[in-house]
């Protein structure tokens, strides 16, 4: 249905207009005409009937009396009056016998009705019972006439009836005429509407086709084609818009052509430029190639230089350290020897100190060089941070005490004991900062604060703070102090290489942090830094690295077998040193002056342990190690390299060659003892034990005797200080003791140095000096 309608609506305008308008119009007119005619006809008919009814009423009324009197004369008068109606075909009055007692056609008077319809009517009338109906009835009806009958009543009694036949032919003619007229008008309307529609359509479609033609011409390239803007409003609008569009298109085309032209020129320009660029490029490439070559050469040169530097450093390291090793080693031995008088020992101490200082200098310089050469690396391992701190503090305490200033440690409870980091560098950092702080503080003290800032189970951020109440640093100097070889003016007299802070900063940065300084001149300074470390994974037992708090090794333990130690070392001083160190405690020692000799001695003597130096003539340490490993029993022997090498990769070389371990030169004797203890699983007897065996009881008794002689006040002071671990106070007390109490002084000092507050308290308690006072404490 909808498709059909759409179909119709999409027909040509002309057709739609013509047939659409025409048919619609026709239908409407026809319908209208029909309705009107129908109504009219009905109306006329009704009117005719009404008129007939009225006439019959009149006739009945007028003739009533005469019917009663059966008076033909009267009746005739009445009927005659009705002749005035032109459309009356006849009028009649009948009595109850069916006799015509009056009739417009006089010939009928006296006759009886005999047709069925009227007889039926008469029968009906006669059969009616009161109340009687005085109604006109159309007894018959054709196109040409209407027959109407009405009874004549008087007092509910029929007297007769009247009959009227009215002519309808005129009415019919009227209607026929009307129909004819409407048909004519309809036809006319149809014709005219078709014509008009046709002309309108023609006009419209002609214009539209004109426009279509114009469009075609435009499409085919006619530049001057333009739509005629005259015409039907809508078409005119369409044409106008079309022309505007054409103009716009023409303008666009022109603009396009113009821009095309510009583009072409632009392209030409571009091509030219491209060519230039390409040429430049080629040029550049050549230049680059040349440069690269040059750079390559320079790089190689630089690398060579760097390599040379490294070798130099390594050599330097070795060359410098080796004699130092001898100096330090022997001086230490002498210091430890019981044969040397105490007065001389001071001299030795000086030598030692100097040596240490020199070593420090060398280390600093080498470290700096390493850093500058970019060879500094973090050497991370699990270690006891707590012990490091303790040792370092202990070491620094000595200096602090000498200056009469405090050295306090404020350690946060969360500060870890065991971590994974570079112990040596951290030690260096702490020593550097603490020694600086002590150096530049005349009164008051230095506080070392330790905190854990962040801990996420694997990684830690540790925070260190060194606060001093020293001379402070000017703001302008704060950056300067970190520069290598910079020393503050007022510190020119101070000892030091001037590299300490620079190195410290580098090391801290390597550990993922940085150093900061806050300082107020004359008030003090705070040096603080954070570092990133990891939690230690192995549980380092205390006994491994330490040898019982650095206790002096006296000799091998009693139950130890004979151990054969082979020392492969070319330098005479070092040979002697090691030999002495080892023999002293009871090892069997043989010396090989080079690798080859070492191998031979191994084969013949079968040592348990080999100290292997690295640089030796004829055969160096690595080669010897490898050779020995290949020999029968070579896998069992412990080979530890003695190396002055500072570089990690060189140490790795050593391990790869087959060494079990390495010890750095210069080494302390206890390092050697430690190493051998670990690898051979042997035990020593310590000085402490010995001394404590010997001296402890002595010192104990001595001290006790001496304490008894002290005033209660002093004793209490000592006890109180010992209880809270107040080293400062204890030192003061010791200081204040008269020189006559030398043994007490030394005894107490020993205890305090050993942090043996427990022993101090143990000594005092049994004195029972004023218990209440003691208890309060």
């Amino acid at each position, binding site marked *: 249905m909808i498709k059909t309608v759409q179909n119709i609506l999409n027909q040509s305008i002309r057709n739609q207009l013509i047939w659409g308008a*025409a048919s619609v119009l026709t239908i409407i007119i026809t319908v209208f005409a029909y309705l009107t005619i129908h109504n009219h*006809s009905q109306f006329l*008919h009704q009117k005719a009937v009404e008129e007939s009814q009225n006439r019959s009423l009149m006739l009945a009324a007028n003739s009533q009396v005469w019917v009663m009197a059966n008076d033909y004369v*009267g009746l005739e008068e009445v009927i005659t009056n009705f002749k005035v109606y032109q459309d009356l075909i006849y009028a009649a009055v009948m009595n109850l*016998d069916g006799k015509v007692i009056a009739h417009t056609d006089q010939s009928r008077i006296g006759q*009886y*009705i005999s047709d069925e319809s009227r007889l039926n009517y008469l029968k009906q009338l006669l059969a009616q019972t009161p109340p009687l109906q005085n109604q006109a009835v159309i007894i018959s009806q054709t196109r040409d006439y209407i027959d109407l009958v009405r009874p004549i009543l008087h*007092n509910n*009694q029929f007297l007769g009836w009247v009959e009227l036949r009215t002519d309808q032919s005129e009415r019919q003619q009227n*209607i026929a005429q009307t129909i004819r007229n409407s048909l004519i008008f309809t036809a006319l309307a149809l014709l005219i509407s078709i014509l008009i529609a046709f002309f309108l359509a023609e006009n419209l479609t002609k214009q539209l086709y004109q426009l279509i033609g114009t469009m075609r011409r435009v499409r085919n390239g006619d530049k001057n084609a333009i739509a005629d803007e005259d015409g039907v409003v809508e078409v005119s609008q369409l044409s106008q818009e079309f022309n505007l569009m054409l103009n716009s298109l023409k303008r666009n085309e022109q603009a396009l052509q113009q821009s095309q032209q510009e583009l072409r020129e632009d392209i030409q320009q571009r091509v030219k430029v491209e060519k230039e660029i390409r040429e430049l490029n080629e040029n550049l490439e050549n230049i680059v190639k040349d440069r690269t070559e040059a750079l390559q050469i320079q790089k190689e040169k630089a690398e060579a230089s760097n390599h040379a530097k490294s070798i130099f450093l390594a050599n330097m390291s070795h060359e410098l350290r080796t004699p130092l090793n001898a100096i330090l080693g022997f001086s230490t031995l002498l210091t430890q020897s019981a044969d040397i008088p105490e007065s001389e020992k001071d001299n030795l101490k000086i030598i030692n100190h100097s040596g240490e200082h020199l070593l420090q200098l060398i280390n600093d310089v080498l470290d700096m060089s390493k850093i500058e050469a970019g060879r500094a690396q973090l050497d991370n391992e699990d270690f006891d941070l707590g012990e490091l701190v303790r040792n370092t503090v202990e070491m620094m305490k000595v200096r602090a005490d000498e200056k009469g200033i405090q050295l306090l440690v404020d350690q946060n409870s969360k500060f870890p004991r065991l971590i994974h980091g570079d112990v040596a560098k951290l030690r260096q950092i702490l020593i550097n900062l603490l020694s600086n702080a002590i150096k530049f503080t005349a009164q008051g003290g230095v506080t070392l604060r330790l905190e854990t800032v962040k801990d996420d189970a694997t990684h830690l951020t540790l925070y260190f703070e060194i606060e001093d109440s020293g001379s402070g640093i000017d703001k302008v100097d704060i950056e300067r102090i970190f520069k290598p070889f910079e020393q503050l003016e007022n510190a020119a007299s101070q000892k030091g290489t001037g590299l300490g802070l620079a190195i410290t900063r580098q090391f801290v940065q390597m550990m993922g942090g940085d150093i900061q300084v806050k300082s107020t001149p004359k008030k003090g300074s705070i040096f603080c830094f954070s570092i990133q470390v990891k939690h230690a994974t192995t549980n380092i037992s205390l006994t491994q690295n330490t040898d019982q708090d650095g206790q002096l090794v006296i000799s091998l333990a009693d139950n130890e077998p004979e151990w054969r130690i082979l020392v492969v070392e070319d330098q005479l001083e070092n040979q002697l040193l090691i030999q002495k160190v080892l023999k002293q405690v009871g090892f069997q020692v043989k010396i090989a002056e080079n690798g080859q000799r070492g191998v031979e001695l191994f084969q013949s003597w079968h040592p348990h342990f080999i100290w292997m130096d690295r640089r030796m003539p004829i055969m160096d340490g690595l080669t010897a190690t490898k050779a020995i490993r290949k020999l029968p029993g070579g896998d069992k022997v412990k080979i530890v390299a003695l190396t002055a090498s500072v570089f990690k990769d060189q140490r790795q070389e050593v391990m790869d060659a087959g060494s079990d371990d390495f010890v750095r030169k210069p080494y302390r004797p206890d390092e050697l003892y430690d190493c051998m203890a670990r690898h051979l699983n042997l035990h020593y007897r310590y000085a402490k034990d010995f001394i404590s065996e010997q001296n402890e009881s002595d010192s104990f008794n001595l001290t006790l005797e001496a304490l008894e002689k002290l005033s209660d006040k002093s004793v209490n002071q000592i006890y109180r200080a010992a209880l809270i671990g107040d080293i400062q106070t204890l030192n003061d007390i010791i200081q204040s003791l008269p020189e006559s109490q030398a043994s007490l002084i030394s005894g107490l000092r020993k205890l305090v140095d050993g942090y043996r507050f427990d022993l101090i308290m143990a000594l005092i308690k049994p004195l029972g000096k004023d218990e209440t006072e003691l208890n309060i404490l």
Partner: protein
Amino acid sequence: MGIIRKLFLTSFVLIFTLLMGCNDPTPASKLEYSDQPPFQENIYLFGVHPLHNPKRLFEVYQPMIDFINARLQGGKLRLEASRNYAAFDKKLFDGYFDFALPNPYQTVTSLQHGYRVFGKMADDENFRGIILIRKDSEIETVSDLKGKSVSYPAPTALAATIMPQWFLVQNGLNIDDDITNHYVGSQESSIMNVYLGNTDAASTWPPPWLAFIKERPEVAEQVIVKWQTPPLLNNGLVVKESVPKAILDQVSQSIFNLHHSAEGQQILAAMELSQYEPATNETYSRVEKFLIEFEKRVRSIRLQP
């Protein structure tokens, strides 16, 4: 195009057809006449003399006819009025009626035209003539009427015309010379003429007068009965000789027993009558004699139309 065209044509044709086929008429019937009555019903015409106009006559007498018809087997009475006395006389003397209720004069005359008397109205006392004058009239004696006009219903109205004329003659008037006589057709007309002043006196007889003043009391205010004539006989009931005895007997039975039922009395009341009674030709010989006398001395009656 095709669709539009089709639509167009179809609708056109449809409508055209519709217009053409108009009202469906009821079938035409042909009129037919014959000389014979369609229903052979025994209708007996009962004519009452026009003492009233036809409408009034029907009102007064139709109930009696209905009463009779309800008890009548083998036929039906049909009441017929007449325009005026002339028309009635013509019908009666032509033997048109089967039954009739004429006045005494017409009763007697009808005997010559195939009728015979079978009954009559009672209350002869009421059968007299009366002469009316306006109250404001100066007429005192009959002789005062000389030179005046008098209205009568019809020349042959016995009580209403003839008897009053006899009275006037008996009282010294010459009908033809002394007064102007206006025969106005009906009783009511006669009364109206004197009331309206068209005539100086009106002649009528009691029943119509009584009925009239019942209906029009204002007339009674203005008009009075001046003279009364001596009574004669009331109206008679005649029957045509050709009417079957069975019919006649039933009719007689009904009529003469009217006064025995409430319904019948009601009917009689409308007629201002107490009853009908049987009678014969002989009963009306007195009337005949009087008529002969009148004709001798006053004027001819029977010859007048």
